[in-house]
């Protein structure tokens, strides 16, 4: 599955976009599973994606077709093929 990374996450994955070895149809197709696949490939992302309790960190914003999974079903959000996945660290300004 293709995943877009932004800002300070890009140097970690080495680019804007990366193919993650994960297909939504497999393993239930949840955001949780996608994150496991991502951290497996880029272990340095673990501290950005998970908090101390192992849950999704407040320091990451995961968007599925432009909607933050925090306001969907969090890690239980079901993914479908061809959805746009984008992952941001904290970003704001003015």
């Amino acid at each position, binding site marked *: 599955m293709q995943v877009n990374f932004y*800002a300070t996450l890009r140097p970690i994955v080495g680019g804007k976009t990366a193919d993650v070895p994960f297909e939504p149809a497999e393993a239930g197709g949840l955001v949780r599973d996608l994150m496991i696949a991502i951290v497996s490939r880029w272990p340095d992302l673990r501290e950005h994606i998970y908090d101390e309790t192992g849950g999704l960190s407040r320091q990451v914003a995961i968007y599925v077709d*432009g909607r*933050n999974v925090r306001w969907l079903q969090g890690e239980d959000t079901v993914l479908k093929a061809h959805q746009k996945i984008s992952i941001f660290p904290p970003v704001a300004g003015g």
Partner: protein
Amino acid sequence: MELKRFGDAIVHINLSTGDIETRPTPSDWTQKYIGARGLGVRYVLEAGPEVEALSPDNVLCFLNGPLSGSETSMSGRWACVTKSPLTGTVTDSHQGGWAGARLRWAGLDGLIFEGASDTPVYCFVDENGDVSIRDASDCWGLNIHATVEHFRDKYGKKNLSVNAIGIAGENEVRFAAWVNEDDRAFGRGGTGAVGGSKKLKAIVIRASRAKSQIDDPVAWKTVRREALDAIRDEKNLTSPKKGGLSVYGTNVLMNITNEIGALGTRNSQVTSFGERAEAVSGEFVEQNILVGDPTCHACPVACKKEVEIKEGPYKGLQMESVEYEPAWALGSNCDNDDVASIAKMIDQCNDLGMDPIELGNALSMWMEATDRGWLDGGGLAWGDTAAMVAAIEAIASREGDGAILAEGPARAAEKIGHGEIAMHVKGQALPAYDPRGLKGMGLGYATSNRGACHLRAYVAAAELGVVPIDANPLDWKGKGELVKAFQDLHAFSDSLDLCKFSAFAEDAELYAKQYATAMGVEISAEDVVRAGERIYNLERYYNNLAGFREGSDILPQRYLDEPSTMGGSKGHVSELDDMLAEYYAARGWKDGVVPEDKLRELGIL
């Protein structure tokens, strides 16, 4: 040199008579309204809400806050407060760099100009705080970069800050700005036009670093360290060289607002720039044209981004800074994905002295009017960068159609009979967060006391999840209380005057502790919020007296009727009426008007 206590040294300068007098601020004013923004509003109220903005009766206040220029982190800010020629409301605009700090180091807390000179003048502030008004006829007609060089030739570069208006201010373009030697601006609200109307070309300050006089230095040092640690915390986007704001600057926002459908495109007819946003993003700038990270006084974040254009028609241009707001206003808003041209146009704004947000909205409005065939010849095509560059010069000079657009997009659109295509609130154009994708920001625009503004209530911090407050950007519920909370907190920090971005790392308690230990006052986090509320109500009271009454808090109809077209917000509109009901209940206002009992409760009357 050790600084005096804040509020003792406000210099009143009458440009009509030449009288210069230093007077302390009434002590209950500094108690109630703190400094900078709050204090300035009180002085503007004193001048009377009925004054014409571009008349000698208007006052133009340049004010520090109690922490400006101190060793406090992110304290390189000062405020310009006046009645806006763009909106007719009170307005305050804040500038970074070193100018405010230098004024403080010269022993002064503020400069308040009234009246108007018959001939061009500038204000000179010397090391010891002596203030004089001097002839500026030899630099009238120069733009800002040349004006800065003019004064550097005259006084030397060391320890010198120059704030100037360019030809836009001289020509009273309604969104003209003051810009300093670091290209930091008092950007919004047309403060530069007020300077032009008074024939005030520049404020030149020569002062070397001085130490703050602090009430409790030991405790102050401890809380300063606490604030600095919060700013440096790697979990915060302010973290030097690690956080998104520090690494990429404010333009780190471009891709996320694009993603969620909050990046107005083609004059907000569309809500996302799609794949083209990347080419004007902070990430692209950092990878391709970034050459430096200049900073302001006492700031470890260094969010400014200096760039150099390496090819094309603007090759060789070195400028700062490609910020998110102008990158949007002159970028997707005008259907332009050429970052080099955006850098060029921002540099024009810095030199001519204009607000790029207002400018970008004027151009995009004109492009839509052209596209719809509403102009009788001429006009501007979407994304025609060469024509945009030319139009900017024409606006500053008030030549041709530039004279229409120099009035700002709201007046210009009315003039062509299509006010509905100007995206503004109370006459001031909307910034870079589409209210259909960030609902709280829309309410913040509608209820901002200076016209549409993203910085009165930066609710985006919550809606984008960078502060620990849960706020779904697409849900309107709860936004009334949230916007009020942000407005009150920011009104206080703008009055200290600390950079708005400090709020990404600091809270009301930390503001209270820094203020208390510096000034020797008893103040709690609750008092901070209360003072912010008082300042916000004071501004609203002024606006009510100036004619902004029931029904003034609105958004352009486009955001209410035309659903978002792209990105995560697709299908959404702004539920403004629902949010306003919540907001007025939280404020205790009646349809935008502050009741007398509320004014008394807050100690304003």
